[in-house]
């Protein structure tokens, strides 16, 4: 999912770099209000874990692999503000240290994975959590569905960028069909990894999980 240099022209890349910079600024303000002594280390750990798991490409279909994006996972664990920042750190590291994702494409990649993947995934998580019974396993199920849908959401982000500024001239609808089809399959892997990770944290330290704590703290305010 990491866009290399050259796919998207520079003006379009610059527009998305500006949009991503806006989202990062918004997330810095939000994370500053939210993070405390207990949640800040978990946010750092989340970035490290996502970096590690993004190295583990799994096979999805003949000749294709996929890897965790981690936006929905991070949003459930540490909240969407810190999640956007964690994913941004991972993407910048990958681009500069490992030449994974183009340097001119960092704004495009941050927009798709750290903004759309995180906030789209978090919106799906909130919706599903609302429908399910209020218990611990619902958090893992809602996180899995959020993970599943966050991947095609990020893929559609790329198609949008392609439609605005592709350097090639292949039809947008062909790119849309292929991107969404492939990334629904990758989304299944995303859902499994997201569910396993959220379940493990819920089992050991549920008090650290933003998507779970958020609900209990709302109840506390009403008391």
């Amino acid at each position, binding site marked *: *999912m*990491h*866009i*290399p*240099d*050259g*796919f998207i022209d520079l003006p379009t890349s610059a527009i998305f770099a500006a949009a991503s910079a806006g989202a990062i600024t918004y997330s*810095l303000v939000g*994370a*500053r*209000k939210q*993070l*405390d*002594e207990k*949640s*800040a*280390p*978990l946010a*750092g*750990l989340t*970035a490290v*874990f996502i*970096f*590690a*798991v993004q*190295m*583990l*490409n*799994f*096979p*999805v279909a003949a*000749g*294709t*692999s996929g890897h965790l994006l981690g936006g929905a996972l991070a949003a459930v664990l540490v909240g969407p503000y*810190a999640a956007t*920042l964690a994913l941004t*750190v*991972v993407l910048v*590291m*990958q681009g*500069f*240290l*490992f*030449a*994974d994702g*183009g*340097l001119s494409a960092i704004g495009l990649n941050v927009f798709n994975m750290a903004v759309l993947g995180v906030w789209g995934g978090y919106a799906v998580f909130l919706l599903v959590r609302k429908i399910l019974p209020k218990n611990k396993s619902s958090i893992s199920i809602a996180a899995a569905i959020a993970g599943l849908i966050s991947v095609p959401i990020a893929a559609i982000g*790329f198609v949008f960028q392609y439609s605005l500024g592709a*350097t*090639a001239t*292949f039809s947008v609808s*062909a*790119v849309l069909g292929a*991107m969404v089809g*492939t990334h629904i*399959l*990758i989304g299944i892997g995303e859902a499994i990894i997201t569910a396993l990770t959220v379940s493990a944290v819920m089992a*050991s*330290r549920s008090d*650290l999980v933003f998507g779970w704590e958020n609900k209990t703290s709302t109840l506390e305010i009403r008391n």
Partner: protein
Amino acid sequence: MSNRKFIFVGLLISALLAGGASFYANSNPDGLEKVAQDIGFIETTKDNANSDTALADYGVKGIENERLSVGVAGLIGVVATGAISGGLFLLLRRKNPKN
């Protein structure tokens, strides 16, 4: 599990995944790369300006053993990501949440 132990276990798992399991990752092109190949716009790829640096493509230049090369690159990534994100989030946190 204490906070300190939880973070330690999490970092250990991350180090094992990036330093050990990463060798077994599937090496087929990822979703976007495969779509770009099938449709044809893979031709427009330009090399990352850092594509010849010491850690490009998750390998350490000069280490011939592939398992060691990707493992060390993964561990360097874990440490670097941890240093940057840890520093960022510790700077951002509220020191006295009750006040």
